[in-house]
């Protein structure tokens, strides 16, 4: 085949493709319109109940919800340092089917990119965490023992390590990370707006999300400061579908953090003990 012939063949192929494309569009039009046209013809020929207009199903991920989540994420990202309080209520099913709740109150201080302090008190998790960019320390003030482990250089990596390898319960971890929005929306299949709610006298927007293993909800403050005020996670694949509820308050996005907040100084007489990893 000579060059002009090849060119002509190519053009012909292009034309065929375009025609095929037009037919495709035409077919879509037919199928899209056909039911409406058919029902119009049917109602003209014999009486049927007036068809009720069904509104289009909302998208699985409502854009307004995603926008507000992004706004929350941006607000948290914009704060170089911040502090807040989290009250975590963990439902724990007994074999009798009775739910028991264990409550932990935590005060969290963050200084991006590499400092975190958490002080927790409550039914089960009574310990403080210090992350100074190099080391993580865990210390229960009820004891004279502390544990330490070398830490990665960033908050994200350190929290991930604590959750993955040390099985440390950190329900607020996503708020401390570099990209809260991306972290939170990973694996989300549906997102919808469940309306407004009052939390501590503040109007919040209530959003609901579903994932493969868990459903979760978040309440975000209305207005210029889209802060998370409450969170709820339902573990729908776990027997009894236990929930973890987190109330968030006392947000301060420009705190005065005392010197030494992120540095652990062992109290006199305290000794270092093993901090066991649950996974390698």
């Amino acid at each position, binding site marked *: 085949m000579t060059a002009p012939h090849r060119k002509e063949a190519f053009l012909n192929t292009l034309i065929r493709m375009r025609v095929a494309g037009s037919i495709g569009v035409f077919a879509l039009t037919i199928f899209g319109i056909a039911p409406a046209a058919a029902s119009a013809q049917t109602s003209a020929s014999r009486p049927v109940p007036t068809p009720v207009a069904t509104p289009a199903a909302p998208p699985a991920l409502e854009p307004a919800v995603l926008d507000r989540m992004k706004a929350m994420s941006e607000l948290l990202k914009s704060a170089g340092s911040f502090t807040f309080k989290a009250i975590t209520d963990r439902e*724990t*099913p007994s074999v009798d089917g009775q739910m028991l709740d264990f409550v932990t109150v935590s005060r969290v201080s963050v200084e991006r990119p590499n400092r975190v302090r958490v002080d927790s008190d409550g039914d089960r998790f*009574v310990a403080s965490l210090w992350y100074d960019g190099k080391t993580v320390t865990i210390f229960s003030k009820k004891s004279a023992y502390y544990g330490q482990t070398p830490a990665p250089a960033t908050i994200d990596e350190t929290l991930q390590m604590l959750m*993955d390898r040390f*099985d440390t*319960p950190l329900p607020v*971890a996503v708020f401390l990370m570099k990209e809260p929005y991306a972290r939170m929306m990973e694996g989300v299949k549906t997102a919808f707006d469940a309306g407004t709610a009052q939390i501590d006298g503040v109007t919040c927007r209530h959003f609901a999300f579903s994932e493969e293993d868990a459903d979760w909800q978040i309440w975000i403050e209305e207005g210029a400061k889209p802060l998370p005020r409450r969170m709820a996670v339902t573990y729908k694949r776990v027997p009894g579908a236990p929930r973890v509820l987190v109330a968030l308050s006392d947000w301060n996005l420009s705190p005065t953090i005392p010197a030494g907040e992120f540095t652990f100084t062992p109290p006199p007489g305290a*000794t270092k003990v093993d901090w*066991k990893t649950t996974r390698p």
Partner: protein
Amino acid sequence: MNRKTVAAFLSAALIASVATPARAWVAAGGWHGGVAVGYHPPCCYGGAAVAGAAIGGAMVGAAVASTAYRPAPVYYAAPAPVYYAAPVMYAPPIGTVVASLPPGCSSMSINGVSYMNCAGVFYMPFYSGGALMYQVTTP
């Protein structure tokens, strides 16, 4: 959310071996790291009853399918059971993990290793799952 991030909400808080209210025991396992946590009754049960529960719980926890109580607890991972209330009255088996000690313990160090000596029962402190635990051991 990241599967692990979501799991971390629940971490070390699961699944159970409560038998009767008087032996109100919860074997709570982490989403991946199983721990059995004994539930301290909110009221009305004396130390001895709690201690009994601890031992009963220990047995059930250790042998998950024990016939001593009704349903076998479900563990998501091979558990090292953790008992919230300490076994007070009986010598707990070596390897038992508790989240709180009986009263009257003294701390000591043997060859640089820390122990709590509770009436001759030695507990080795360690951190796990975000909390301080003690494991019954021989120094």
